[in-house]
């Protein structure tokens, strides 16, 4: 869709395809969310500016921005918004849409980690912490992986000693029993949403 400046095309797309997107239109541009965000300084476009850019139809700039990936889900913005926008969820929704549209900036660490986390938990129904850490360390290749692991070596050993890191998890780790039902459930949920939100 061409970028029609100051038209509601992108706003309508957000309302249709983004989690809680229907609330974006309620923002009154007061700036309390941008001011409350602990990672605020790291956002190229804080939440309120993103909402304004959506109204201004700047689709490309919004979806390819790494701003919404800076959200630590601390809910500080939600409890202070005078219009009660669920800002945290809208940011998650925008991030997910950016992912599905392939517009995430290359090498965006939180996007990568989020995908690893999802793949990890969906395999066995529960997070395998060891595999998750290793996949995070080695995400930029083997050499960098070894360097990352060595840097966190003392922490790893400490946790093992404290009984909070089980090397045997590399084999399988915790898992739910009804894996097949669980994965079928997730597959169906994704299908339903993809059709409802025109994401496929």
């Amino acid at each position, binding site marked *: 869709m061409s970028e029609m400046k100051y038209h509601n095309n992108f706003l309508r797309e957000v309302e249709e395809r983004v*989690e809680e997107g229907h609330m974006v239109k309620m923002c009154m541009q007061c700036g309390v969310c941008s001011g409350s965000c*602990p*990672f605020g300084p*790291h956002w190229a476009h804080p939440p309120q500016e993103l909402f304004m850019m959506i109204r201004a139809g700047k689709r490309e700039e919004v979806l390819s921005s790494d701003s919404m990936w*800076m959200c*630590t*889900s*601390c*809910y*500080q913005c*939600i*409890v202070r918004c005078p219009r009660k926008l669920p800002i*945290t*969820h809208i940011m998650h*929704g925008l991030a*997910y849409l950016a992912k599905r549209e392939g517009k995430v900036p290359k090498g965006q*660490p*939180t*996007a*990568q*980690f*989020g995908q*690893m*986390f*999802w*793949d990890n*938990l*969906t395999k066995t*129904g*529960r*997070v395998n*912490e060891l595999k998750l850490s290793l996949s*995070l360390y080695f995400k930029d290749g083997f050499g960098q992986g070894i360097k990352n692991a060595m840097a966190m070596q003392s*922490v790893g050993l*400490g*946790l093992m000693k*404290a*009984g*909070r*890191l*089980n090397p045997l*998890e590399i084999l399988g780790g*915790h898992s*739910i*029993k*009804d894996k097949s*039902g*669980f994965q*079928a*459930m*997730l*597959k*169906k*949920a*994704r299908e339903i*949403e*993809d059709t*409802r*939100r025109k*994401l496929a």
Partner: protein
Amino acid sequence: MANKTYSFYPGCSSQGKASSSNYLTSTNSMCQKLGITLNEVPDWNCCGASIGYGGGGELPRVVLSARNLALSEQHNAGQDMVATCAACWLASREAKERLDHSPEMKADANVALKEAGLEYKGQAQARHMVEVLLEDIGMEALQSGVKKPLKGIKFAGYVGCQTNRPFGIVGESFENPMYLDNMIEAMGAEAVSNYDQKVTCCGGALAFSEPEKSQKQIKDIIESAYDHGADMIVTPCPLCQANVEIYQGEVNKRYGTKFNIPVTYYSQLITVAYGGTAAEAALGGHLVAPAKLADIANK
């Protein structure tokens, strides 16, 4: 002590040898001393925490929690589903609120759940362990059972973000909740007054993906504890505990600080105050050993 029964949702980090197994151990000991029976939700799955959106859409994430709630309704009927981890509680409660407010989403969720032979009805409440302690047992009752007051230890009550927002605990303020400070004092210890980093976020999942940005937050949290003369930090959230404890070394490297402060759980404080042993309170499960607490436990 009153004997109460709850359906228990431990969450991925509170499993045997997982990153907050010490939280699990001390929680079980605490509940045993308080006469609380926890029936684990059979075959519970991960709640997706708050980073799941990197891979899963809204409905798949809601369905993760719907499955847990459905399992709890089915096997532990009539019992509230209690979580100890902030993210598990938040994901479950938010999912419940969305399912109960949107018939369309509830219908969609149940179509997906059917694939796993389950159905979400919406009977079970999703609550946090701290709510159980405060609302069902109450601060006076908690204080009355203390056998070994934690004299001489000053704790910084670090509530963090998701336990406190957006639902709040017993209706307390988001800026300055007092329940954790009151719990510290009830256990006979001293609580830091107006600890300004009380509700600051530790970076959460982004401690892994954005270490530098998160460690700035962690530095403020620890530095303010030291500034207020705290011996230890106590927190209700496993991710806060892990991030604030594990990355002290990294923070010291990055900022040249010499932090070495123990980070404990409220469940450990209560277990020790109620006469539990160091092992029952899982005091061994720390990178920075809570020595003073262990001394009291071993007396």
